[in-house]
């Protein structure tokens, strides 16, 4: 193993200044990704997953956002102090991103071929012709039929799933080492979701890249990731391999998330005809004034005085299994 992780986020705090005060959207997140692995980042809406991802690519508008503390080490080099020009070199060639909304993530005034070719020409300095050929290759790679003709089509001529494929082609055109996929399937039909995730896995195998898969669906995690980081209220509360996490979830929040996955076999045992799907009571605390102790304390069934007194540190409960819970 190489001395550095591919991406190593250490104690990252990304805060936003608002009229009501500081919103601590990401408040001390540490996680790492190694070459060629898929890390899933899960958690409910507003827990800081997307802000973490955007921080890595430095896509946060500053102001109102700012990096309060922490480091984002990319192959051993901190990204936070880089200039915009240096960052533009990292974007697309090293780290790339696929967004949630395929319908609006492509520029409506250019053909998809032009958009992919533009990226290739900017970063790989290819000629116009070579870039267009590269665009055809990329579209073929993401299994868009009739690629030679379709590069001349405009985004509105593609369906949602196809557009997400085009987005993936665009993001992968420069062969990045890390792809950040921010809820890439949330806006798509269930059947299309599976195809897109399969495509991502396939691309990962072919290009040997790592994926940071941001999602709120535990099912997606189980199918596609090697490791999982569970986020809650701007912090990582549990980090483990997929097997360990599903076999032995230690944090009450993770347990709640896993219990809330619908199961076909649940409630079908004779006698309990109706089992309600488990839910986690309450909602995410305000990130304006986060509680002093454990942030999950208000919704947790096992809360003690100690939980409310001080934030629980991330501690190791097994090899490569960390949890931020004192229980």
């Amino acid at each position, binding site marked *: 193993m190489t001395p550095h992780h591919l991406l190593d986020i250490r104690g990252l705090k990304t805060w936003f200044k608002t009229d009501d005060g500081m919103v601590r959207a990401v408040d001390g997140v540490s996680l790492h990704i190694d070459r060629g692995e898929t890390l899933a980042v899960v958690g409910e809406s507003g827990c800081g997953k997307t802000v973490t991802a955007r921080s890595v690519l430095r896509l946060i508008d500053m102001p109102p956002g700012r990096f309060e503390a922490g480091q984002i080490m990319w192959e051993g080099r901190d990204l936070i102090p880089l200039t915009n020009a240096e960052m533009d070199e990292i974007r697309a060639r090293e780290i790339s991103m696929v*967004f949630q909304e395929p319908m609006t993530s492509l*520029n409506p005034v250019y053909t998809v071929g032009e958009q992919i070719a533009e990226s290739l020409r900017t970063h790989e300095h290819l000629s116009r012709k070579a870039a267009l050929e590269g665009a055809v290759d990329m579209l073929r790679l993401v299994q868009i039929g009739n690629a030679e003709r379709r590069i001349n089509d405009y985004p509105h001529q593609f369906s949602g799933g196809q557009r997400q494929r085009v987005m993936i082609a665009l*993001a992968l055109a420069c062969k990045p080492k890390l792809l950040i996929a921010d809820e890439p399937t949330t806006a798509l039909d269930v059947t299309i979701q599976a195809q897109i995730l399969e495509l991502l896995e396939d691309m990962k195998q072919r290009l040997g890249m790592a994926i940071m898969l941001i999602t709120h669906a535990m099912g997606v995690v189980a199918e596609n990731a090697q490791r999982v980081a569970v986020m809650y209220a701007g912090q990582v509360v549990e980090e483990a391999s997929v097997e360990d996490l599903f076999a032995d979830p230690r944090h009450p929040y993770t347990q709640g998330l896993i219990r809330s996955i619908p199961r076909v076999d649940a409630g079908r045992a004779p006698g309990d005809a109706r089992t309600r799907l488990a839910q986690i009571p309450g909602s995410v605390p305000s990130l304006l004034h986060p509680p002093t102790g454990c942030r999950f304390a208000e919704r947790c069934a096992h809360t003690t005085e100690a939980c409310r007194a001080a934030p629980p540190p991330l501690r190791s409960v097994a090899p490569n299994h960390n949890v931020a819970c004192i229980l």
Partner: protein
Amino acid sequence: MASTTAPKPKPPLSPTREAWRRFRKHRLAVVGLIVLALLVLAIIAGPTLWPVAIDDIDFAAQLKPPSWAHPFGTDDLGQDLLSRLIHGGRISLAVGLSAMAVSASVGITIGAIAGMARGWVDTALMWVTDLFLSLPQLPLLLLIIYLFREKLKALLGAEGGVFVLIVIVIGGLRWMPVARLVRAQFLSLREKEFVEAARALGASKFRLVVNHILPNALGPVIVAGTIDVAAAIIAESTLSFLGLGFPPDIPTWGRVLFDAKDYLDIAPTWALFPGAAIFLAVLSINFVGDGLRDALDPRRVH
């Protein structure tokens, strides 16, 4: 996922063609476009088809109504009006187009800077825009021309000096709507995901603005631009009508109208033709603008 093999090859609908298809549905806009094309053709080809000098003075044929020798009649010096209007049209349309170019470039620049920078830069630029909007335009126009006409004449010659002055003044006083339009477009477009995606793929800020945001913001600007052309033609006519535009030996449409006003009861046709030319040009440009608005509306349904 199988490739979608449609039974018949579907026609490639580029945004340009799609816009043209919608433009054609707007019947008045098509009529406007045809009238405008005829006017432009007349102005370009006119001097070869009707080779009569604009300053050919003939006191035997003063203030004549239309005839075969002079299809649009003559003025008080017996000069041929058709010929004068053909020449005048060149200047009027050139003034309109140039003033539009000035107002569009100023407006796009200011609007884009305000929309991208936001914060105090935006606030300051919008104050300036509001300030310009609240200025009484015609008195200001007259004042500037009084102050600078002679200097520019000395610098660039009678025709060039007045042309530059009028274009700058008209253009410089009409950029505000474009700036507001562009700023509003930028404010909404910069939050669009495709802009963020382009940024995530390493597009520099300049590239982002020029390649990704501006082309999406251009539809409404083109529409505002066509209306500016019409407004500039009217403004030039107004100035010439007030005797502050081009000198009498340069017959713009407004100038001809100005010269005709004292003879309305004797030779009404003298005023009629330049008036009709202005009317037709402005009306057809406005209709074309209407059609373009429908064709390029970003809220259109695909």
